[in-house]
């Protein structure tokens, strides 16, 4: 059975999340426009701010892995660009390991925070959207970002284009 490279394995996951983020962004736009229009008829949509805040978190959180895969984050590479290929690749792998470590920490702590929010029953005031779901959603996105960075490290790929 042919072995699938880790970077190829995470790509569809990142792409799917990016599309879900896109749907959330379009949703934010439509909900807000609908609220503005209905407000002028004195019939605003209850909890628009809460819903838009929720959708915003999904839009941005779920786009993190694809943004990394597309080299969309900003970094300073004018020093590392000048390195010969072998040390350059080693340094790239090191930066991916450090990044993966950061997102592993964030994901771990967000899962723990979500568990606390679930225990306390924390919800938004108007729509009663449970905050723990959002914390776990962002934690999942950070966990996938961790996998993306780790897979890039294994592929010897850095963050620069």
């Amino acid at each position, binding site marked *: 059975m042919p072995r699938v490279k880790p970077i190829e394995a995470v790509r569809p996951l990142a792409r799917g999340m*990016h*599309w879900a*983020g*896109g749907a959330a*962004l*379009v949703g*934010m*736009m*439509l909900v*807000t*426009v609908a*609220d*503005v229009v209905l407000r002028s008829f004195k019939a605003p949509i209850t909890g628009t*701010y*809460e819903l*838009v*805040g*929720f*959708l*915003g*978190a999904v*839009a*941005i*959180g779920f*786009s*993190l892995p*694809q*943004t*990394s895969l*597309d080299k*969309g*984050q*900003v*970094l*300073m*590479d*004018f*020093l*590392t660009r000048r390195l010969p290929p072998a040390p350059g690749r080693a*340094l*790239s792998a*090191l*930066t991916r390991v*450090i*990044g993966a470590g*950061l997102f592993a*920490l*964030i994901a771990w*702590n*967000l899962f*723990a*925070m979500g568990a606390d929010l679930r225990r306390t029953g924390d919800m938004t005031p108007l729509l009663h959207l449970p905050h723990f779901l*959002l*914390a776990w959603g*962002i934690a999942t996105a*950070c966990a996938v970002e961790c996998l993306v960075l780790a897979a890039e490290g294994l592929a010897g790929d*850095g*963050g*620069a284009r």
Partner: protein
Amino acid sequence: MSHAAIGGLVICLLFGLFSLGIEIGFAMAIAGFIGFAAVVNTHAAMNLLAKDVFSVLTSYGFTVIPLFVLMGQIGASGGVARGLYDCAYRFLGHIPGGLAIGTVAAATGFKAICGSSPATAATFATVAVPEMDRYGYDKRLSCGTVATVGTLGVLIPPSVTLIVYGILTETSIGRLFLAGIIPGLLIAGSFVVTLYTWCRINPALGPAGERSSWPARLRSLGPIFWVLLVFLLVVGGLMKGFFTPTEAGSVGSFAVLLLTVAKRDMTPRRFAKAVLDALRIATMVITLIAGATIMGHFFVVTRIPATVADWLGGLDLPRFVIMLIIVAVYLIGGSFIEDLAFLILATPIFLPLVLKLGYDPVWFGVIVSVVTMIGIILPPVAINAFVVAGVTGTPVGTIYRGIYPHILGMAVCLIILLLVPGISLWLPDTFMQ
């Protein structure tokens, strides 16, 4: 170890991480986390990491960023820039350097709906450079101009930079938008003067194109009307308090979408691309903000901003000289680190000092935006030059040679804006007092 010493070490660590090639947002988060753990404790730093990421991502206030970026991406994908360029070309194409001057005019109009600098540079590199090539324009002039005009979006509303500055400093985004208009037009004017003078000295750089008939010119005016309408809706709605910034971004995006659909310039594929591209840009910006928020909490516990304010404030220098030092720090910092990233990193440090010196935060927002504009095209980290090089296949060195004359004009405008704050503050003081 004192907090100041830990602060110094963490800043060294931060620059070390930057030079390793770690993403700037990630590096700020890592340095802030380590510093916070050193000053407070590891458990508190772990909590900080989760809480800051959660609060930035779920904040309603930050939703303004993806929505305004979306508005610009829809405009870029839907041919709005081409329509504006066509109009400017009809009116100005027949004079020497006219296509380049037309690019400045069209980009100034396009900035009224698109707040992203690299997106504008990429759009006009696609639309304007082939046209200038057709008339034998020198690559320095065509590519240098396209890279430079992209920076106008930093100042002309709805600028993402001004939105980010407004969020970071809790300054009214409506006032910042109004404050950016006259300085933005002043700098656009400096581009026109530079191009006109350059082509007068060496007419071979930008040969004259064909003269258009008046009926053709009048027919080309349509896009200006639509862009002006969207601009008035967004900025006017914000100014009058009809919309929150997020609502203004949503209504603006929806209006540009309707406009491009009505003109049959938008397809589902283009729309999907605009949405996904907008998310990529917005995610980059919000990652920077999340990293800076973690770093900012470390700054708070070490009192670094207050220390910097006390130290610089105690130098017994005139406040204008201190302001020049701050501007120099932004300029040098922004030349090595991505400019928006440096603005996000440095503003919380310098703002307390700026306020202590009695400067208006709205005016300071305009000043750091102009410095950011210069930084975007100043080597060695000149993002717009790289974008235009990527789209047109022109060597970056050639583009830099076309950028330098414009930097001179921008520097003159910066000095004028520093000396006369009224240029920036007149509109917000008149309409949003």
